């Protein structure tokens, strides 16, 4: 009996040991990113909000379908065209014990709005003229003009809510490396530029997260990042390059997460002040000479979506405009009508930043060649490229998006309205429509004007829209993560099986 008891004990130990070990691994997560983090004050970010998003909350949040949903605010309503009222969620505390109340909201927004603080992303909430505390759980925000996007603005940085007492005690510099918020995770260890380790906030108002510790590691080189995933060093990697996708697919333990419409929309900028791009028929001909389907299928291996508009599918104001038909014969005819029966020679600038961009540029040069337009290619390093684009061109390749505002305005106004720093277009009628869209409060009327903008752009070709890139992640098979159109990684929603 004694022997068998000892035997049973041994069996039990052996059987439970691996289970305990895998249990431990199941609540740990490592995410490898291309860019490093140097500061984590969410009001003064100069980088993406991926990490602070897990430490802090906003009043308004977005669900996985990008619809606005209650966050720290339970509800909000517009009292009059320039005033919004937010009712806060009762009983929420920062991880240092301070309550999340109207005072904290006012404090969080005021410190970003204070011009003395030089917040880098103040423009995202610049429309706010006043933040008032009505009662401990009610905040009233007044805007300088009608601002239909205010609840959206409250869903992203710099509108994260921070603890006033903690910040006043320790100051902003300390806060940037020792952040305290009300989110699902709190900071455990921070090595600037290299790694950030977070541990679960078990008192989180939505309930304790299932991942207990998460480490964000910086691995700038894409090949090294992918290797980290393949050998199990990382559970999720950001920015998986399309060339390495087959490697991840071939791995028995890993998977590719391909978020359709999650990336930038790539376009060819046309410097319209230079001949022959001032000619509408020339622009239309170039637009028709590109075989977008072939580019997306054969060069980008399907990791992008052909598009006829710069506005992303999840952006407010998106209009489904089909991409121009690939028709080299019609393009040739248009060129002849424009007075260039034998084509012309033009420079196409591109860089190394987007999915297989140099191969795409070479393919486009070849397609332009097919309608008689001789292309001189110039492939420049990003640092040099930024100094030449958008003025030199006359054709240049660039990616643009609505960057988390998920609104058409940010996706088109800066690159289509004449005189904007990144715009090389100049179409008075388009300018008029764009200006009009910025003055309308009513969402449905605004969407109508934005639709007109996109239709006019498709007709007058201020630039040549190519395709919208996917956001591509790599992940271990046991991690439940599907990626989001706004590029966030809410670890709270991630589970390990």
């Amino acid at each position, binding site marked *: 009996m004694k022997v068998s008891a000892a035997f049973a004990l041994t069996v039990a130990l052996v059987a439970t040991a691996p289970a305990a070990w895998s249990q431990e691994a199941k609540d740990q997560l490592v995410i490898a990113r291309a860019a490093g983090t140097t500061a984590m004050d969410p009001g003064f970010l100069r980088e993406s909000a991926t990490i602070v998003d897990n430490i802090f909350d906003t009043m308004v949040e977005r669900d996985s379908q990008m619809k606005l949903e209650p966050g720290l605010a339970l509800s909000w309503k517009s009292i009059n065209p320039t005033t919004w009222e937010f009712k806060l969620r009762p009983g929420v505390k920062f991880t240092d014990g301070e309550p999340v109340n109207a005072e904290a909201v006012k404090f969080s927004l005021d410190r970003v709005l204070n011009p003395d603080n030089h917040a880098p992303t103040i423009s995202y909430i610049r429309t706010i003229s006043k933040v008032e505390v009505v009662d401990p759980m009610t905040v009233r925000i007044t805007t300088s003009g009608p601002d239909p996007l205010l609840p959206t603005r409250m869903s992203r940085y710099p509108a994260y809510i921070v603890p006033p007492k903690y910040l006043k005690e320790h100051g902003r510099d300390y806060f940037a490396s020792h952040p305290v918020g009300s989110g699902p995770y709190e900071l455990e260890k921070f090595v600037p530029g290299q790694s950030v380790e977070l541990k679960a906030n078990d008192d989180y108002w939505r309930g304790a997260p299932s991942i207990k510790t998460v480490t964000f590691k910086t691995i700038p080189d894409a*090949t090294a990042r*992918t290797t980290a995933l393949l050998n199990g060093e990382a559970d999720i990697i950001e920015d998986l*390059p399309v*060339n*390495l996708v*087959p*490697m991840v697919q071939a791995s028995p333990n890993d998977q590719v997460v391909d978020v359709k419409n999650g990336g930038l929309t790539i376009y060819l900028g046309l410097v319209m002040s230079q001949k022959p791009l001032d000619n509408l028929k020339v622009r239309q001909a170039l637009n028709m000479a590109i075989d977008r389907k*072939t*580019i997306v299928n*054969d*060069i980008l291996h399907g990791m992008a979506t052909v598009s006829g508009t710069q506005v992303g599918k999840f952006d407010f104001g998106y209009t489904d405009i089909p991409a121009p038909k690939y028709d080299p014969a019609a393009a040739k005819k248009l060129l002849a009508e424009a007075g260039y029966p034998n084509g012309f020679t033009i420079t196409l600038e591109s860089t*190394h930043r987007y999915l*297989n961009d*140099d*191969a795409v*540029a*070479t*393919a486009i*040069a*070849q397609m332009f060649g097919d309608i008689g337009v001789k292309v*001189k*290619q*110039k*492939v*420049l*390093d990003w640092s*040099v490229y930024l100094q030449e684009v958008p003025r030199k061109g006359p054709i240049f390749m660039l990616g643009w998006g609505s960057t988390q505002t998920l609104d058409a305005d940010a996706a088109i106004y800066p690159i289509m309205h004449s005189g904007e720093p990144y715009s090389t277009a100049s179409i008075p009628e388009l300018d008029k429509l764009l200006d009009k869209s910025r003055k309308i409060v009513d969402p449905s009327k605004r969407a109508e004007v934005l639709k007109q903008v996109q239709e006019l752009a498709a007709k007058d070709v201020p630039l040549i829209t190519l395709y919208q890139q996917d956001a591509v992640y790599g992940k271990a098979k046991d991690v439940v993560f599907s990626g989001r159109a706004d590029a966030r990684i809410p670890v709270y929603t991630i589970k390990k099986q």
Partner: protein
Amino acid sequence: MQADLIVACILLVVAFGTCILVPLFWPLDPVRGVFSATFKPPMSFAGGHLHPLGTDQLGRDLLARLGLGTAISLGIVFVASVISAVLGTVLGMIAGYFGGWVDALIMRLVDMQLAIPFILLILLIVAVIGPSLMNLIVVLGITGWAIYARVARARTLEVRELEYIESARAIGQRKLFILFRHVLPNILVPQTVLLTLDLPRLIILEASVGFLGLGVQPPTPTLGGLIGEGRSFMLIANWLVLYPGLMIAALVIACNLLGDWLVRRNDLREL
């Protein structure tokens, strides 16, 4: 023992065979992409054609690109080294023959040229004036003269003390005439050997500039450009980097072996 000469000759025959015969007779286009045939491995068929070295990210035949790329790279390197050699030899002869402040000035220029890292200087110049075939040739040409000048000067110092130069001077021949009619032929052999020994350096240099994307612009292939483009696909299509790399290695080894053989044959151990 002529083993090194034989190896050098075999490698050179392969390299020159590729860069002359392929662009002339290989039917596939080195520049035009066939988008339905991307990343075909070596010895595969696509679109009714055999691709002995496979295809690249745009479905272009790698053999066709390697042939043209080698031809263009070698063209750049030859023209550039001839420019370097002529410039360096003339300046070196002048410095050695005239001496005095001319000598001092030219040799300080040589020191300056040798003190600046080549690759940095070339990257700087190309970044300022813009990348193109002509710019690259000129830049590689005018930055490589210093070593030729040094050797030419040393030989000229030796030659100018010889009796036949003295007698030429005695019968009143003009200095430039003496320099090019009597001095030059006597330093030509070491300069030629030096050129052979300097070629590998230029081949690597051209490849480095191409690799960094500052050389000849796509879609025109060069050896360095092929490796630079292929680098991002290395894990899924290693042939894109392997064959251009082997070609560079073959050329460099061949030039070095040939140069060593020439040194021994002409008894030029000081080179």
